[in-house]
């Protein structure tokens, strides 16, 4: 059993970007260099705080802080466990890169309301880290709802009629998901004894590796709770048929698409599934009641359909969005398969997909800012003009398809192994098929860019270094994860620890690294 140590670091990690948001608003548009400095300070400080907790988590001492009661018996409590810090590390690290990238992007396109943009981005990161570190369901939903609302101003950033329409759709999905989640948690709370004379026992809603929900509940109640959660997390995780807000939300500026709609917000939904299956219901109960099969079916269908739809999209960001929908479901599928290796792959895929997909979005944004091209069909020969960008795009594309030496291969390998362990050959086929589809919709872009020629793109002319450097860094990250999975922030070890706490089975896939 892990030990819990009292620490304010998780709270500070959450608050630092909220304070950053305040400083950003106070500084305003007129002194924008100072304003950007606040963003960087907040981002680096946040990442530093998260990173500072890593050694103690790896040593089995989980930092924990209990602030106050949110509802009788339920505390506003933060706890840093392997799953939380895995997600927090990837989100906060990528925020630093996204910040630099966003400076280049926002200035390059001369966007309006930049102060609001950077402030809300900082608030979103606060909420995301809050989700990572929530120790119980109520704390989780608190940050989850804040994240939903804080993302809205970013979605409508363009200020056009279309953006508002999409914003409304986004809200309908997000608010429905939020209230479904709250309803589910209320049911859990009552099932745990909130209505009894004694009230809730302390920690009755705390996430517990292997789940805490009693299997004695009636089947109807269990399924009701599960479906509430499924809607609540499924919307953010883009599980079909709850996904349609996500491609539309690409109307937001590309840094938002890259960080929030490939990493923070959507992964919060996926992370919710990890918390749901691994730490609330527990794999045993999820399997026994049949919910795992349902979840796997939804995820499997999403993987295939999303990949197929992505092929038909000419708009680059839309294609990437559908690719995101598909890859999020890889993780959901991994969790739903319940086998230790599948969970390992799922957890690791949260990181690798983040690195690869953010690279692709960064590239799409750089191409747009620099050449104002949005469509795949316009990209002929662009590799001559922006070779670095397009090379990075190629690495990301290859990685998503699951080619070795890029991170995607490692996670997919374990997902596939998990599918075999779970005896689900169907899903193994799905995974392989989708890998082919991935290659089919991403690689032609690279081929087009480098091997076709166009009179427009003849000389070397990259986008601003503010954008290119983050692209190269994320690309290197994606490669590093493939060749040395445990090299960066011990992501692989963390994934193994997640598996152990959820399933109780220790696996040392990399020979005890």
């Amino acid at each position, binding site marked *: 059993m892990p030990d819990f140590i009292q620490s304010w670091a998780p709270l500070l990690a959450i608050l630092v970007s909220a304070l950053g948001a305040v400083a950003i608003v106070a500084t305003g548009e007129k002194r924008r260099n100072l304003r950007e400095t606040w963003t960087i300070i907040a981002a680096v400080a946040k990442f530093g705080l998260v990173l500072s907790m890593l050694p103690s988590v790896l040593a089995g001492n989980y930092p924990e802080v209990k602030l106050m009661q949110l509802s009788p018996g339920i505390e506003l409590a933060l706890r840093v466990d392997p799953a939380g810090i895995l997600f927090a590390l990837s989100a906060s690290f990528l925020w630093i890169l996204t910040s630099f990238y966003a400076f280049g992007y926002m200035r390059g396109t001369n966007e309006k309301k930049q102060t609001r943009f950077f402030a809300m981005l900082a608030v979103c990161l606060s909420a995301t880290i809050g989700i990572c570190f929530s120790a119980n369901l109520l704390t989780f939903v608190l940050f989850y709802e804040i994240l939903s609302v804080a993302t809205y101003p970013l979605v409508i950033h363009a200020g056009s009629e279309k953006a508002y329409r999409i914003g409304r759709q986004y809200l309908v999905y997000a608010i429905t998901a939020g209230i479904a989640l*709250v309803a589910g948690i209320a049911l859990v709370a009552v099932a745990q004894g909130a209505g009894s004379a004694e009230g809730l026992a302390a920690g009755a809603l705390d996430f517990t590796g292997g789940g805490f929900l009693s299997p004695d509940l009636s089947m109807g109640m269990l399924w009701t709770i599960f479906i509430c959660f499924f809607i609540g997390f499924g919307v953010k995780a883009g599980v079909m048929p709850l996904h349609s807000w996500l491609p539309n939300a690409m109307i937001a500026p590309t840094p938002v698409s890259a960080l929030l709609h490939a990493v923070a917000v959507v992964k919060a939904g996926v992370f919710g599934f990890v918390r749901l299956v691994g730490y609330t219901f527990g794999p045993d109960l999820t399997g026994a009641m049949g919910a795992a099969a349902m979840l796997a079916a939804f995820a499997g269908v999403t993987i295939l359909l999303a990949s197929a739809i992505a092929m038909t999209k000419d708009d680059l960001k839309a294609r990437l969005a559908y690719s995101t929908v598909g890859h999020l479901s890889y993780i959901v599928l991994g969790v739903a398969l319940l086998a230790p290796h599948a969970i390992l792959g799922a957890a690791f895929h949260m990181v690798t997909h983040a690195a690869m997909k953010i690279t692709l979005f960064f590239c799409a944004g750089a191409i747009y800012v620099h050449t104002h091209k949005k469509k795949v069909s316009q990209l002929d020969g662009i590799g001559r003009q922006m070779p670095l960008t397009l090379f990075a795009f190629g690495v990301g594309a290859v990685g998503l398809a699951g080619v070795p030496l890029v991170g995607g291969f490692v996670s997919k390998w374990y997902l596939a192994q998990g599918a075999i362990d779970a005896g689900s050959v169907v899903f193994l086929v799905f995974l392989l098929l989708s890998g082919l589809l991935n290659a089919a919709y991403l690689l032609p872009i690279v081929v087009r860019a480098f091997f076709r020629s166009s009179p427009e793109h003849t000389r070397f002319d990259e986008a601003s270094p503010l954008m290119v450097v983050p692209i190269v860094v994320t690309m290197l990250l994606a490669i590093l994860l493939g060749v040395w999975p445990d090299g960066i922030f011990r992501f692989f070890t963390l994934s193994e620890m997640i598996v152990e706490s959820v399933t109780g089975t220790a696996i040392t896939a990399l020979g005890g690294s």
Partner: protein
Amino acid sequence: MSQIPVLIPTVLLLAALISLLAGLVNRRAGYATALIGVVLTLGLSLTGLVHIWMGGEPIRYALGNWLPPIGIEFVFDALAAYMVAIIMFVGTLVFIYAPRSLALEAPGKEGLAWPAMVLVLAGLTGMCLTGDLFNLYVFLEIAALAAYALLAIGGGAGAVATFRYLLIGAVGGGFYLIGVAFLYFSAGTLNMAEMAMLLPELSQSRAVQAAGVFMVAGLAIKMALFPFHFWLPDVYTHAPSAVAGLIAPVMTKVSAYAIIRLFLDVFPPGFFTEGIPLLAALGWVSAVGILYGSILAIGQQDYRRMLAYSSVGQLGYIGLGVAMANPLGMIGALLHVLNHAFMKGLLFLVGGVVRLRTGRTRIPDFQGVGRKMPWTMGAFTIGALAMVGIPPTAGFFSKWYLLLGAADAQAWTWFAVIIASSLLSAIYFFRMLEMVWRNPETDAAAQEMAPVPEGQTPVSMIGPVAILAVAVMVAGIMNVAIVSALLDRVVAPMAGG
């Protein structure tokens, strides 16, 4: 300390009288005396609240030293302390806010408004403090009469709307009075505490059951519970913002308080659930009201009318929480009394500020207001998010307790109703938020909505708005403290029985 229960309404009644007389001499003196009375009472009620909060015993005071059942008793217990604190807190803020708002919306009539506003507060606090069933009726009508005068201050259309309110209010009050008659002739006392001791033996009596029905029905009518809400939108629309900001948050809630008091402390446990299914009826009526109010609010073009329909729905939450007949639902209802008072007060006051600064009251005209007055609209945003129920605002937590209560009572339809209405209120409040924060459509509008120093809004108006906005957050975050210090004691009769 021991006089607090009776001092609160007395000081207010006196202040109303003095303010009326002083107002004849000098308009400012009228306001000043009224304000002194209100602030003094706020101090008293907070002193009492601290006493109760610290675990102090309820304070009982027999008027004129005539002990019950002959005399009238005033009781300052946890529930009364809670209600009075809410009333006086919101009341004081509105009072500070009112002069500038009334000067614009009902010029020349302020002299009468101050005593009337103080009388409303006197009536409402009196209702919460009295331990006598008939005395409660008297205070109910004092508050109502003063409210009629205030609401009609806007003139023509306001007077007609208020007349309809008066008629329905008379029916509600009359029904309550009929109920009191039945109770009195059955039990021979009007004192609530004695009544509570006598009623368990009499609970099979037809007269007592009829009394329960009449009293709850009368109070439900007074509370503007669906389908007795029809006067409410017109009244709120035509009233000056400050008046609506006083009446909407607290007036209807105090009738809800009276129902809760009857349910918890007068009638025996189980009376309304086993003998006669009154609570179930209340719950279903509330559930329909929640959906009805929320749906109609979506279609409104006038800001105040939208808030009014939203109130119809929100009052349903309180009725629903009571109807769940378990401690969690009751806590949800009581918390919602507080939360809704803060949220609706905030939203009505914001409406007044917008009207002062731009002259606009229609929702489509709100486009771009956020540019002109970002801080006021920031407060509005907090209020709107609270109404939708986004954590960590107060609105989230009342909804949370109500959901727990519904789940505990296994009332799945009501559970679904609460969820559905959250979505509906999200629709109309996010529509407002989008409108407020988007850019003005035309250049002329942009000119008008150009940012100007916020200092143009009088501090007396922006101050209360800001305080309420903070209160909405604090009430949410502090909910457990409120529940464990006050509300757990209030619902103790349910948990024990």
